[in-house]
């Protein structure tokens, strides 16, 4: 099977599984809803304060929720030794990785679309800067979280207390991406300065880490 065919087959399988069970989406959505509600109890911001803090709140909620879904990606393949079967099959690791990353990207994007509506209602948000720039920030930022998250979920498969290991690895690595997402979003919401720098930063981050993941994934897959 070619690279693309393997990727598509794995992706289709994951999407179908998710469509039928809705495990990841439901878990993430309720989790981030709770985070949003707790934040709204904790702060009672004015419109201007909302613009200052909403970028941070929404991305922290997404980050926490994404970890919930990312932890399940590979764990699912451990049952019935699916991952071992994949390892002995002649297919290389990269299509598998790419399919998983794209799948997670889709799930987290759906979550974000719903969460954005929720946050607009909760925090009475209206961007003062160019609102369309939120889209590239969301897409690039989500990919940044998801590509490293998928990779390190695979790394943390063979560790004790796997669920805690993923955030321990992912959060420090994602500091620059998170700063880019939060600062970029805040820049657009407040309209104070341009978000271009942060978009460029996220593009560079995505390119470098996607390349690194693809180059090193086979090494990690064999090491499991």
């Amino acid at each position, binding site marked *: 099977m070619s690279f693309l065919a393997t990727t598509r087959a794995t992706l289709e399988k994951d999407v179908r599984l998710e469509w039928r069970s809705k495990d990841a989406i439901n878990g993430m959505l309720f989790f981030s809803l709770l985070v949003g509600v707790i934040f709204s109890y904790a702060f009672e911001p004015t419109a201007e304060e909302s613009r200052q803090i909403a970028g941070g709140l929404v991305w922290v909620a997404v980050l926490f929720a994404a970890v919930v879904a990312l932890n399940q990606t590979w764990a699912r393949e451990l049952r019935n030794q699916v991952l071992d079967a994949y390892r002995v099959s002649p297919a290389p690791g990269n299509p598998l990785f790419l399919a998983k990353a794209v799948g997670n990207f889709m799930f987290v994007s759906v979550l974000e679309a719903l969460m954005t509506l929720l946050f607009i209602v909760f925090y009475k948000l209206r961007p003062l800067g160019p609102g369309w720039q939120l889209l590239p920030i969301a897409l690039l930022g989500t990919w940044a979280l998801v590509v490293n998250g998928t990779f390190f979920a695979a790394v943390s498969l063979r*560790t004790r207390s796997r669920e805690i290991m993923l955030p321990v690895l992912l959060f420090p690595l994602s500091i620059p991406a998170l700063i880019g997402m939060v600062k970029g979003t805040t820049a657009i919401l407040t309209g104070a300065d341009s978000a271009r720098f942060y978009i460029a930063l996220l593009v560079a981050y995505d390119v470098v880490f996607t390349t690194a993941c693809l180059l090193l994934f086979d090494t990690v897959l064999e090491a499991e």
Partner: protein
Amino acid sequence: MKRGFTILAIVTGLLLAFGFYKALAPLDWPLGTPTEQTMGYVQRIFYYHVSSAWTALVLFAINFVSSIVFLVKRNEKADIVALAAAELGVVFCTVVLVTGPIWARPVWGIWWDPADIRLNSTLALCLIYISYLVLRRFSTSSKTPVIAAVWAIFGALDVPFVFFSIWFFRTQHPSPVIAQGGSLDPRMWITVLINWAAFLSLAWLVGWTRYRLEVAERKVDEAEALESLLEGSQ
């Protein structure tokens, strides 16, 4: 080897003692260092702060290089060097993060500035390598060295991004002395270099010990595994 170790230990001890004396001795003592005019005596923590920072950076660089060497050549020695370098790097980085606030409190009036470039990049660096150590400790796979080396490469790739992402943060941290050497009194330069040499030498000494300890531990583990295997087959 034993003799080399003893000599290194003696040299380290002498350098540390001399560096400590020079860092604290005022100018009117023999071989003393001038006291900074505006900050006064508290500035002398600089000799420990900066020397530790440079040592930590050297150790993280060693960790990165030996991780790559390990991934390419699968040489166990490179893995042990990477492990020892990361552990020591975290220790020295912690010294930087502790001495910084001790200095900042009297000079800036605050312990920590949450939006400062240099403070945040150092903290992120320290967190990345703590993660590395946690990963090694929690890993149950026999391929721990491989995934640790992969993580070390990701961590090193992350460092420039950490720096760029906070490009627009303000900084009130004194500018790096290495870039503008002229602003530092030459006598202060000598003191900071002696302390750096002492810390590097200390890192080498401790790293060497850690290396030998890890080699011995792995031998013991192997022997135990072999023993239980033999017992099982009887």
